[in-house]
């Protein structure tokens, strides 16, 4: 942990050397999700609700997904660019060092420019938390925190799977984007909007709905069972196959040469 903090400050210092570049990338990140938000807003100017959810309620969803995605991307960026590490043979160096591979990849990159997106998520929260008409009792506050924290973990595990696939393919698979970037983009609406089949897939296979849709029902008081409140914790189970897959890939890894 101390070592990670050291890496963390190192990355922070190095990225602060290029302030303009950092600033512009952060602004870009902000704008990208801002246009997505504008799109949602335009849709709600025309339609007052979707599947029974109002605009502030949908925004709550949007902000949870955005915040957890940017947290995962900020810290898990190393896994996002992992295919390059495999491609140029640098991963071999990681393997000879006396620390775990996951730790080293994790520490290899911290992307601070994601703060643009983070900021946007916070602004949306500031608007949506009072506007959603939810009575914020302590259990609901806990639920919201669980949604964000577990969401970050699920996105992080997805990055891990993405990285593990490149053990076999060398290149990153564009198809995984539908789960990571797609999860972010389409997570702006509660997943039930997309119908039963998609909701089922996102509950049992890739548990994005477990930290987004079900706990949202609890927040809105549509479901009172504590089970819905604790659903986000269940999504953490996704970590088991994700880590197992990473280990399996690591085991099968053959270097691509220097």
């Amino acid at each position, binding site marked *: 942990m101390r070592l990670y903090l050291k890496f963390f400050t190192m990355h922070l210092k190095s990225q602060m050397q290029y302030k*303009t*570049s950092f600033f*512009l*990338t952060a*602004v*870009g990140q902000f*704008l*990208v999700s801002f*246009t*997505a938000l*504008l*799109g949602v807003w*335009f*849709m709600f*100017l*025309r*339609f*007052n*609700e*979707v*599947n029974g959810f109002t605009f502030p309620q949908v925004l709550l969803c949007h902000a949870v997904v955005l915040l957890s995605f940017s947290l995962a991307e900020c810290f898990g960026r190393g896994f996002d660019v992992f295919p390059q590490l495999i491609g140029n043979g640098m991963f071999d160096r990681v393997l000879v060092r006396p620390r775990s591979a996951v730790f080293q990849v994790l520490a290899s990159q911290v992307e601070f420019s994601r703060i643009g997106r983070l900021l946007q998520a916070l602004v949306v929260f500031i608007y949506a938390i009072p506007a959603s008409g939810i009575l914020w009792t302590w259990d609901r506050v806990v639920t919201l925190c669980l949604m964000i924290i577990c969401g970050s973990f699920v996105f992080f595990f997805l990055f891990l799977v993405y990285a593990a696939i490149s053990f076999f393919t060398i*290149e990153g*698979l*564009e*198809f995984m*984007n*539908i789960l990571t970037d*797609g999860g972010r983009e*389409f997570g702006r*609406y509660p997943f039930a*909007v*997309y*119908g039963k089949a*998609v909701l089922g897939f996102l509950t049992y296979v890739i548990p994005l709905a477990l930290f987004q849709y079900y706990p949202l029902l609890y927040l809105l008081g549509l479901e009172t069972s504590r089970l819905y409140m604790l659903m986000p914790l269940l999504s953490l189970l996704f970590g088991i196959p994700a880590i197992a897959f990473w280990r399996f890939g690591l085991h099968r890894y053959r270097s691509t040469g220097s």
Partner: protein
Amino acid sequence: MQKYLAIFQIRFVNSLQYRTAALAGIATQFAWGFMEILAFQAFYRVDPSSFPMTLSQTVSYIWMQQAFLALFMNWFFEPEIFNAVMSGSIAYELARPIDLYSRWFCQAAANRLAKAVLRCMPILLVAFLLPEPFRMSLPASLPQFLLFLIAVFLGLGVIVSFSMLVYVTTFYTLSPIGTRLIAAILADFLAGAIIPLPFFPQPFRTITEWLPFASMQNMPLRIYSGHIAGHDALTGILLQIVWLTILILAGRRLMSRALRHVVVQGG
């Protein structure tokens, strides 16, 4: 003319090499299109009367958008061109007996076209075979389809000439990140890549429909789906021609001004 055709051909064949990447891309775009359609359907169920396009027009719009993504994506720029300006290898380009603007224009257009040709067929094929309500419909008539084809090529011209403006700004700023990012994001939104322009609220919608960005993907996709037809389609194509001319003239002018003062970096 012949040399530009040759550049076009080289680029085209070159891009056709990456078939596996294309396959993965196709799968992604397919899933993406599905999710988009499902989201629009959810809104449609809430209130069909507020829907500015018919559902099948929206479905066609989305499938066409996914199929021709490579043709109309605003966030794609030629890294080679940026590198040429920043590394100084532009000096070689300038020594060639060829007009630089046209050369880059051909290169960018060919790359987009090749990517799109490779990717559109499987997506369209499946989209035509899907069960209702996901199935893509055929254009209303043959003339409508011909208008669509014209609009596609004009749209490609508009987007390439717009990105040429972004390349030219590299001469002035040397760091393309800022302009590139902001231009790409705004253009994407105003072109109707996030939600189709008819879904924009008034008066915002009327304003955006006159902007050059509406001449990119908005026009061909809506002509195909039949949302813009007959007389309106002809006016739209005229608008595309006007914007294309303005953008090319502006790009050429800016470029020749930049080249007069160009300082080549490095040796």
